[in-house]
């Protein structure tokens, strides 16, 4: 029984923003705007906008293709062209889409890149991805920034300095050369002030899962909420307005004591509160989500919603230190944290949001997420004595989503939680 999806005002706002961006991309030439391809982790959206460029996020296009059931065909196309079965499926989906005419999620052609900007190097595949694109778009300027890994769990002044130097000596001059626009620090600062506001709002939004029932699902709906802040709108008034609106809608849900909205309407009973590590599967996103909400499971926090920035612990963009804060931002995205930092962060989520369990969705073709996941799970299990679950799927390759395997595992996991609750009640 599928109900008409509930459309809130914030959803409409988001849709308008995304359509606007793709419309601009479609008319980039007429608008005289340059196009910059970049990735969500460590994205320098504000800097890109300072130079009036339009951002394109290949991994977002890939996941959109998957949700529109097009990724399977694109991946096949890439494999025909010698991309092996083990290559990251985001890459193959993107390459395949390009080969098939580069038609984006809104049905219009995505313009070729003027700049390929890599500002996060924690994922080695990103680097190879742009090397591949460079061969396809020989006229594009490649700008690669080396982002130091937080090996010692801190961002030292030297690390910041090292990155700022790259911005000043590499990134900014090259962007000036491509766009013919002079670097305007005041413009950047203005945007960073708005970024800070967006970040404040989104932190408050994800913090609402403290309520019982949780008014939102911080994973399945969370991936929509992070859209604007991750895909280039962070430093815009539109994003601030969107998050303000979203927050007030959520406040209303809290006031009414409502649970999260699912594709089949309101979730009626909150039985389990979970924290999820790892990206979702995009090819069967609805089916995947349904397994959870059918069981009354709500995700109260997820690591995936932190890939575009970790704001939970108070870090914000700072207009008074524009380039320094951009450097910190790049170094502070989730997959650039070392494993103990990730464990601490997830443990804090489990404790703060009163989670009953912790689930890892391990992605077959994503090294940057998968490395260390089992160890993290073990450590969290030992530290918090929380029941843990492990499932495997893939980002955008439909061949690697086995519904029955995942359902069987999750069913077992939920029954395990249920059993514990019964035992705990008996022991009280």
């Amino acid at each position, binding site marked *: 029984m599928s109900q008409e999806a509930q459309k809130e005002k914030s959803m409409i706002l988001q849709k308008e923003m995304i359509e606007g961006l793709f419309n601009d991309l479609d008319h980039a030439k007429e608008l005289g705007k340059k196009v910059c391809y970049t990735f969500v982790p460590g994205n320098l959206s504000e800097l890109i906008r300072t130079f009036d460029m339009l951002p394109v996020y290949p991994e977002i296009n890939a996941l959109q293709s998957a949700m529109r059931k097009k990724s399977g065909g694109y991946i096949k196309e890439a494999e025909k062209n010698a991309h092996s079965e083990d290559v990251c499926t985001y890459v193959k989906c993107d390459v395949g889409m390009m080969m098939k005419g580069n038609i984006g999620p809104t049905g219009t052609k995505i313009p070729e890149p003027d700049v390929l900007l890599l500002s996060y190097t924690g994922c080695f595949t990103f680097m190879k991805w742009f090397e591949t694109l460079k061969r396809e778009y020989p006229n594009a300027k490649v700008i690669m920034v080396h982002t130091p890994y937080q090996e010692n769990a801190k961002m030292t002044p030297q690390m910041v300095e090292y990155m700022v130097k790259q911005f000043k000596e590499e990134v900014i001059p090259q962007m000036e050369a491509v766009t013919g626009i002079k670097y305007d620090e005041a413009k950047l600062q203005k945007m960073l002030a708005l970024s800070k506001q967006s970040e404040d709002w989104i932190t408050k939004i994800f913090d609402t899962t403290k309520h019982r029932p949780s008014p939102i699902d911080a994973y399945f709906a969370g991936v929509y909420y992070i859209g604007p802040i991750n895909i280039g709108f962070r430093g815009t008034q539109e994003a601030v307005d969107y998050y303000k609106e979203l927050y007030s809608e959520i406040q209303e849900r809290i006031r009414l004591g409502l649970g999260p909205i699912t594709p089949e309407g309101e979730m009626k009973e909150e039985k389990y509160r979970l924290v999820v590590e790892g990206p979702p599967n995009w090819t069967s996103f609805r089916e995947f989500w349904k397994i959870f909400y059918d069981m009354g499971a709500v995700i109260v926090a997820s690591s995936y919603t932190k890939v575009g920035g970790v704001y939970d612990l108070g870090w914000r963009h700072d207009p008074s230190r524009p380039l320094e804060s951009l450097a910190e931002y790049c170094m502070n995205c989730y997959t650039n944290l070392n494993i103990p930092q990730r464990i601490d962060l997830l443990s804090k989520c489990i404790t703060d949001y009163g989670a009953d369990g912790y689930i890892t969705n391990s992605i077959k073709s994503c090294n940057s997420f998968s490395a260390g996941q089992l160890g993290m799970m073990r450590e969290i299990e030992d530290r918090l004595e929380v029941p843990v679950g492990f499932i495997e799927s893939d980002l955008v390759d439909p061949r690697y989503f086995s519904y029955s395997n995942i359902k069987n595992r999750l069913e077992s996991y939920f029954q395990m939680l249920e059993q514990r609750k019964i*035992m705990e009640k008996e022991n009280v």
Partner: protein
Amino acid sequence: MKKYYLGIDLGSTTSKAVIINEQDEIVGRGITNTRANYKVAADIARDEAVYDARFNLLQRKIGEDVTKPEFKKYMQDLRSVFQYGQFRRRMESLERMLNKTVSEFNYENKAAILVKLKEIIETIRPQIQHGFINEDLGSKNQFFRDIVSEKYNVEVEAKGKEFYEPLMLAFDKSITPIENEMVHYNFKELVLEAMKILDEKYKGLVDEQEDGSHEDWYYAQLNAVKNNYKNVEFTLRDHIEDIANEEIHIAKMVGTGYGRALLPFPEDCIKSEILCHAYGAHAIFPNTRTVLDIGGQDTKAIQVDSHGLVTSFHMNDRCAAGCGRYLGYIADEFGLSLNELGPEANRATKETTICSTCTVFAGAEVKELLHNGEERPNILAGLHKAIVQRAMSLIARSGGVRNEFTFTGGVARNEAVLKYVKQMVTDSYGDVTMNIHTDSIFMGALGGAMFARRNISADLPTAKEKAKQEN
């Protein structure tokens, strides 16, 4: 009225049922092969468990006498011949179906095929009868399909090439509907019939020469039963009526196993096999902290807490290598039965390294190795080792062996697997207590029955009504 609780574990290869009483004691176990119709498989397993329960109650009624050699032997024979009674009825249906199937064939030599079929049936019928009555076939854990097809295939081979295809086709077409047909038997009728057969058997019993081909107790039992079977019959007759009429009232039940979603049970009576296996294993061995279950098509490494509740688990994914089906496939490759695999592997002088991580490729590798003159037991040992290695990796992923280790599932019956599990667990985790129980294959069903007794708040009738309404 006494209350009993039923757990049914519908696995990919076998379906198991366990009945427990209010003290969590197992009163009956039943097992059958899983077939296309899951409901029939579950019902047969349940019926088997009920018969087993009645036999166990009967033994309890006999009291201390049951330990006497004549009673021991008699009860063992009685169960085997009781199975023959069931077998015979199903066999009659199969014979009719075979004849019908062949009659509908379009082969030119149909009449000749029918003659051959008749010959085969008349050859195997007494063979099987003899097997049940005189050779203890009933205790060999073989199912109807296995027993018949083994004998049938041998006879078909002997009938010549021109009959091979139609006769095999006739069997394949006939066995499935027969297997998927539910037949309820009358316990009392079957027991009395079995007693009559045994009466005949013992009457004609001649003294066996003690030539050392059997253990001493064998001759002792044989002599005892020969001299005292009338007495045993007399004692049993007293109780049969009561036992047959005793209502085994199943108060609650739980279904588990990979086919659980297809069981005709209400939703709240369906439980994950991971929980059930862990709970069952923990009930038998309360200090268990790590459970390894190797079933037909999946392998599970499960960590449990002191209450028997699962804290985490890992399963094999996307690949059958490392579970029971792999063994089945290998057995087919070698033309052995599943029961022969373990003993054959244990005859190895070394373990051949098997590189393929895929069931199908392993088959190709085996052929190559045989071609190169590698000994069969050595290859089998390598294959068994490979399975256990895969299981060990799952155990490691799930957190390792933390304390007592319990091995469950059908594959725990394979002695070569057992040997490597013991070896590798000790190598990796030191001297931990390792539990393997004769009931390993029933752990999931036992866990299910225990869950049934504990925490299904809804009474079955209400839950059933709910399920009906939803349909």
